[in-house]
């Protein structure tokens, strides 16, 4: 089943990358130039030929290639006069928001390099294992004399370069650990691999009967596989997260003293500068309005759903969205001094308390590594005393102990399960950032939700669409089609879903705080507040509404509600049935919060909570010993997200929310939350089973090896078997969950003239 991010085609000039694309253009070795763009909205494979076809028709562009996995497009051109801005423009015409992609951002480049190094090492060691095993079979089946020596020499010829090449990841890490005076798992591994290879070389020189090149290379192969899986899991999580993160390369339009305007980077803004904010733009800095009236959407900052009317003298903050009219703003604070920076500061302090968490695997590794060395040394010394100084046998037994205790199965126990889990979760629309998130998610006992954008979809929806006359809806949509006000967008969406074409309303004007007016068939038509349309206020608290007035006819009333996610009640009921404590902590006003809480059956809720209060509340629960899962999307949730035992954010969350949360879920459904918890619990169970298997195997095999009953070859076979059992056990997770696809598929909305203002949040 395909999960689609609920972005939908959105033509939204304000989210287009407004800055200069030139810094992101790179020169290719053949003299042509290339630009990589992230397009978060590529959800369905059908868009691949659409994008490629459209871009390749651009004059001057040589080629465009979509990378569907990475949700990117790489465009290449030779013509020096080609303007890369044409690409983003074309993409926005197609309804895709795009941003320049910088692989060095978020460490993806280093990730890729590391990952391909590991994969190459796996391939090389796999090749070596196959061939050495082939030769070993011949030796065991009775090759003698010069033939056996020949086979040993060929094995040596394959094994030694392989150890030197494929062993590098372990050797480097072991040397790094040793040089800082510490032990890690890689020290015994490096020791075992090198010793086994060198002993075998010594045997080969002296025409010995057995050599253990196969053992040392098999060891490497399995360890590398485990390490690659681990790396894959982390890289996958990180790259999917970075797809969602936008580059914080926002820009601002400023007006110089002389009246000239220019675009500068948001980071270059200084207090006292005069900033011009067009309707539909997000503010890049805190400031005071000096000219203009508009409505401001502050839902990302506070969770407040209703736009607020602002005029000259009002204070506005970075991150707010200017909805209806152009504003001139004197910058009062930029960069480090903004509201945003304050939130980041709060988060940093909350993060510190979380970093003390240690994963099971790490806990075990701390005991395990010294134990292995002690056991191997004991074996060596014991055998030396027992045999009266027989170095050869003693060393062989010690190597067998090192190989058999080699933490392959232990090393695979967690990464293997987590890789399978992250795949299952990814298919269900959940992305986790690291394995620790899964571990923490499994023992959560309280869930705290933010309301706006988390329990709700964060955008108003027309609730009485079916009872409205289609002519009224057509007229309203005609008026609202160019407005960015969330209610206007909801009207257009409703008209679109009923298949009603907007009426041809002319001379449309938008009055911030009041509404829209225009002329239809020569008659004045208004859409907006009751007062604006000449009706009595009726004190319908909290529920936003629009009135449509056309000439003398009876006005039609449009009511809206910030809709709950479709399956939110079911998910909340399930969470409560499982004995979890569920609460709402919202920055919105009391009326909408209490309405949402009562329709979801949540008794415990708080409204009008500031970011500081949210953080304090989560911390107080934590101190009371509760393990809190914080689910939120806004800027105001970010500190609480960081403070929670673990945290989740919808993919429509603010950048900062997505960066902070351990887990991100896609789409309009809240069901991924349940799936994530179930998978996390199953993952935890399987990890513990794997540990039991691995430790059990060691308890059995170590005494055998120490008694000298296992040759290094038998040790290598036993070690491989235990690894395979652990991997097989991990794969059971995929079997258990492949049937449970509970995600609601959200299709991209049909390409409509109406563009939801909130789609920018999904981007």
């Amino acid at each position, binding site marked *: 089943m395909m999960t689609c991010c609920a972005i939908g085609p959105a033509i939204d000039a304000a989210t287009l990358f407004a800055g200069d694309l030139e810094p992101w253009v790179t020169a290719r070795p053949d003299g042509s130039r290339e630009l990589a763009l992230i397009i978060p909205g590529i959800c369905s*494979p*059908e868009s*691949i*030929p659409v994008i490629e*076809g459209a871009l390749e028709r651009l004059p001057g562009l*040589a*080629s465009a*290639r*979509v*990378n*569907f*996995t*990475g949700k990117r497009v*790489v465009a*290449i051109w030779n013509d020096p006069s080609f303007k890369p801005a044409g690409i983003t423009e074309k993409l926005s015409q197609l309804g895709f928001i795009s941003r320049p992609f910088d692989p060095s951002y978020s460490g993806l480049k280093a990730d890729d390099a590391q990952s*391909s190094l590991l*994969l*190459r090492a796996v*391939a*090389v060691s796999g*090749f070596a294992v*196959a*061939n050495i095993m*082939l*030769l070993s079979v011949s030796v065991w089946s009775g090759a003698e004399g010069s*033939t056996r020596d*020949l086979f040993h020499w*060929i094995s040596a010829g*394959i094994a030694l370069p392989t150890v030197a090449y494929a062993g590098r990841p372990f050797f480097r890490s072991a040397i790094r650990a040793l040089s800082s005076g510490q032990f890690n798992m890689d020290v015994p591994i490096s020791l075992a691999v090198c010793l086994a290879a060198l002993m075998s070389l010594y045997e080969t020189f002296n025409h010995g009967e057995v050599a253990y090149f196969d053992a040392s290379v098999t060891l490497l192969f399995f360890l590398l596989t485990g390490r690659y899986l681990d790396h894959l899991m982390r890289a996958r999580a990180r790259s999917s997260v970075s797809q969602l993160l936008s580059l914080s390369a926002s820009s601002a339009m400023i007006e110089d003293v002389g009246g000239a305007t220019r675009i500068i980077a948001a980071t270059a803004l200084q207090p006292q500068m005069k900033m011009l904010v067009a309707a539909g733009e997000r503010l890049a800095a805190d400031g005071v309005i000096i000219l203009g009236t508009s409505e401001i959407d502050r839902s990302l900052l506070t969770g407040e759903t209703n736009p607020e009317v602002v005029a000259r003298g009002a204070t506005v903050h970075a991150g707010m969205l200017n909805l209806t009219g152009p504003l001139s703003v004197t910058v009062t604070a930029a960069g480090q001094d903004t509201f945003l920076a304050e939130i980041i500061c709060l988060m940093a302090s909350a993060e510190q308390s979380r970093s003390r968490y240690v994963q099971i695997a790490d806990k075990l590794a701390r005991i395990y590594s010294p134990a292995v060395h002690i056991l191997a040394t004991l074996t060596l010394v014991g055998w030396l005393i027992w045999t009266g100084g027989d170095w050869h046998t003693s060393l062989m037994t010690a190597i067998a102990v090192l190989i058999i205790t080699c933490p392959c199965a232990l090393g695979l126990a967690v990464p293997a399960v987590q890789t399978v889990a992250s795949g299952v979760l990814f298919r269900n629309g959940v992305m986790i950032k690291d394995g620790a998130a899964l571990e923490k998610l499994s023992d959560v006992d309280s869930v705290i939700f933010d309301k706006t954008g988390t329990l709700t979809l964060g955008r108003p929806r027309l609730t009485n669409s079916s009872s409205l006359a289609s002519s009224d809806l057509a007229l309203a949509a005609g008026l609202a089609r160019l407005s960015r006000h969330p209610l206007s967008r909801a009207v257009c969406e409703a008209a679109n879903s009923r298949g009603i074409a907007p009426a041809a309303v002319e001379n449309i004007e938008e009055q911030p705080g009041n509404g829209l007016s225009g002329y239809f068939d020569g008659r004045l038509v208004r859409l907006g507040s009751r007062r604006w349309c000449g009706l009595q206020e009726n004190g319908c608290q909290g529920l936003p509404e629009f009135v449509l007035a056309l000439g003398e006819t009876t006005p039609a009333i449009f009511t809206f509600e910030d809709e709950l996610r479709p399956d939110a009640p079911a998910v909340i009921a399930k969470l409560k049935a499982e004995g979890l404590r569920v609460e709402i902590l919202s920055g919105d006003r009391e009326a909408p919060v209490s309405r949402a809480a009562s329709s979801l059956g949540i008794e415990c809720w708080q409204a009008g909570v500031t970011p500081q209060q949210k953080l304090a509340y989560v911390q107080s629960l934590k101190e009371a010993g509760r393990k809190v899962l914080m689910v939120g999307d806004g800027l105001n949730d970010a500190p609480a997200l960081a403070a929670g035992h673990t945290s989740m954010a919808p993919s429509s969350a603010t950048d900062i929310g997505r960066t902070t949360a351990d887990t991100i879920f896609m789409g309009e459904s809240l069901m991924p939350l349940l799936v994530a918890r179930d998978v996390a619990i199953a993952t935890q169970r399987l990890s513990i089973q794997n540990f039991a298997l691995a430790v059990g195997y060691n308890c059995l095999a170590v005494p055998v090896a120490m008694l000298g009953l296992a040759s290094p070859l038998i040790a290598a076979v036993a070690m491989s078997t235990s690894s395979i059992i652990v991997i097989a056990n991990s794969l059971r997770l995929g079997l258990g969950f492949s049937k449970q696809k509970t995600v609601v598929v959200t299709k991209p909305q049909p390409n409509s003239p109406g563009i939801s203002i909130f789609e920018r949040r999904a981007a």
Partner: protein
Amino acid sequence: MTILLFLIPAALALGAIGLAAFLWSLRNGQFDDLDGAAHRILVAEDRPKSSTDRNN
């Protein structure tokens, strides 16, 4: 036993060819977009082979 002189190099060479093919495909970006490649066969229109197809 002289047959070994042919068989062993042949076995090694076959393995090495496989390894080289894998490393080549890795370097060539064949593994960059596994999901996209899986879908392309279904959604992409047939078009004459162009030199640009390898550029990513």
